[in-house]
């Protein structure tokens, strides 16, 4: 409200009022731009997230279960995690060339780490008594993975996924800012360089909304997967 009134009284070039932004939002994003920019971005984002989660969980489980592999790889993994992913964008662009595959690789290159490292940690910290129980009842390898290792690591894995989502969104935008002709990141940069300020803000608004939507979907899945975990926490609090 205050922002609306203030924006109307003293209009500023770089900080348009809310009504201007909402108008720009409707004009910019509802229509052809939806299929031209929003859909490609969302597809890249979703593919990037899915690949990150799958690669992170599979590789993390293997590394977490095999001790020598873990000891071999852990320092290297910490190094790659510490590198801010955006600096990799130009290198990856050079190596893989511009294109959708590269953009997905950029997202994965940044978003895979939280899932991977959390999965390793989660798999490794499986309770010793639970493991002995599985051994004494001669559970098969697959059963142990399905009913013991993965569920017991799932709270850590979900914490990793949560971090990965925000990293993936950031990298989607950044990957589209380099020589591209479609996507949200490209469009927002275009508006910015062409002084289409209200349109630029409306793009940022759209990114924010996408972030909220991602968080909502994550929350929904997390509540189902970790129902037992939240149940225990509730019992402990009571």
């Amino acid at each position, binding site marked *: 409200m205050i922002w609306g009134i203030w924006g109307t009284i003293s209009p500023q070039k770089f900080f348009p009022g809310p009504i201007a932004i909402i108008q720009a939002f409707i004009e910019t994003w509802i229509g052809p731009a939806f299929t031209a920019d929003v859909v490609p971005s969302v597809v890249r984002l979703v593919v990037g997230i899915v690949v990150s989660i799958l690669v992170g969980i599979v590789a993390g489980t293997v590394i977490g279960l095999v001790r020598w592999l873990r000891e071999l790889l852990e320092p290297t993994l910490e190094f790659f995690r510490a590198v801010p992913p955006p600096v990799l964008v130009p290198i990856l662009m050079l190596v893989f060339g511009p294109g959708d595959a590269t953009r997905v690789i950029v997202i994965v290159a940044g978003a895979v780490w939280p899932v991977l490292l959390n999965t390793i940690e989660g798999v490794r910290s499986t*309770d010793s*008594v*639970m493991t*002995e*129980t599985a*051994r*004494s*009842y*001669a*559970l*098969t390898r697959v*059963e142990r993975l399905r*009913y*013991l290792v993965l*569920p*017991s690591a*799932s709270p850590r894995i979900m914490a990793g996924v949560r971090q990965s989502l925000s990293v993936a969104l950031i990298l989607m935008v950044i990957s589209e800012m380099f020589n591209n002709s479609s996507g949200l990141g490209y469009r927002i940069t275009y508006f910015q360089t062409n002084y289409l300020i209200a349109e630029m803000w409306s793009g940022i608004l759209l990114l924010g909304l996408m972030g909220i939507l991602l968080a909502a979907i994550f929350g929904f899945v997390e509540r189902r997967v970790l129902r*037992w*975990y939240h*149940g*225990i926490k509730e*019992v402990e609090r009571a």
Partner: protein
Amino acid sequence: MPETLLKVEKLKKVYESSTGSVEAIGDISFEMRRGELVCIVGPSGCGKTTLLKCIAGLLAPTSGVIELDGQPVTSPPPNMALVFQEYGRSLYPWLTVRGNVELPLKHKKLSKQERAQLVDDALLAVGLDHAGNSYPWQLSGGMQQRVAIARAVAYQPEVLIMDEPFAAVDAQTRADLEDLVRQLHRDRGMSLLFVTHDIDESVYLGERVIVLSKSPTWVQEDLPIDLAPERDQITTRALPRFTELRTHVYEQIQRAKRGEAVRPTA
């Protein structure tokens, strides 16, 4: 079928570490017949858990032989079930009570109905037929341990091994669970090896009590418990014979603690 179900012969376990080796078990030998209920007591830190893990095939002994049904135990045998002291860490919190009981049956070659039948039967035996769809963490400690017992019962083992299973529950629950164990032994003819540090419990439950020495452990005494098979928390515990036996075991444990008992040289 051979009369002897479990045979432990000259078992020795030495833990090797960089700071030196610790001899946990010196020389343990005993036998257990089919359908027997044997209790093992000993002073704290006498290697009871080490002994159990060796028998269960979870830990490789340094030397000696363990045979179950004439087969040497080198890995967890399929005809043995284990109930741990830490019920909270032995049940899987992401599975329901039913799921936990059913899990070890999944790779046994059973039809769905047979499996469900075994689970129902085991839950009924421990008095938890109404709680199948609950999660373990929604139940009290005593009930959680009943779930662990049901899981072992459904597995239909030749021998059930219990490692201080009631050490973490309150006294009243404990008495109920002791009677449940007696009942499973009596009604189903289950062979049970029950490890405890509670002298009264060992005398009340057992047909035989094996008293262990302090570490490095050997069998200090193998005592038959000549109480009637029908036991009751009030009347049995009030019997003069019960008091005699528990006093005897108590004295043995005290001697074990002081290291007075002399290890026989064989």
